């Protein structure tokens, strides 16, 4: 994301940012990060 966009998000009202945090938490629960496949040990 561009720094200007991040700066714009940072300037949003706190209540709006908290709503976005809740959305991010829901997204993270819906789409949990996949753990990387274990790599074969290097010989």
């Amino acid at each position: 994301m561009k720094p200007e966009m991040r700066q714009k998000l940072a300037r949003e009202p706190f209540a709006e940012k908290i709503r976005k945090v809740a959305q991010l938490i829901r997204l993270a629960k819906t789409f949990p990060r996949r753990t990387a496949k274990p790599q074969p040990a290097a010989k």
Partner: protein
Amino acid sequence: MAINQPSDNLPLADVLRAANGLVTTGLIEDWALGGALAAIYYVEPFATYDADIFFIPKGKGLTAGIPAIYAHFQAQGWQVEREHLLIRGFPVQFLAAQGLTEEAVREAERIDYEGVPAKVFRAEHIVAIAASVGRAKDKARIEQMLQQADLDKTKLENILQRHKLKLPIP
């Protein structure tokens, strides 16, 4: 909605109201929101899984106030899960403030969140506390705060100097 029914939204107003209740009942002297949620007051939103409430206990001692705080909330029907109190399913940790964090509570910014009066750590204290803890995520928080928050550099330097702290070299 029942007091401990999980919420789809982040129940921050309930968290702040609960913290205010501790002052009203005389269990603590003062409190302020710290940690990731305090940082989000100044920077772009990011996912976080708990709220950190720093409080100034009425009495002194290592566990000052914490057993009484948890007993108070359990009596009201809140659930406790390890070191967290669950407010509508959202974990909240109460931490006794001392030294730098006590100063951060005393000098915190007064805000109004959805009609609930509250206090949030000032940006300069968030940076100084992150510098004092020094984990990788604290270094990332410092960088983000320096990029996005309107910091009072003189105030930050003053806090860092008084608490003998240095910002990590990027």
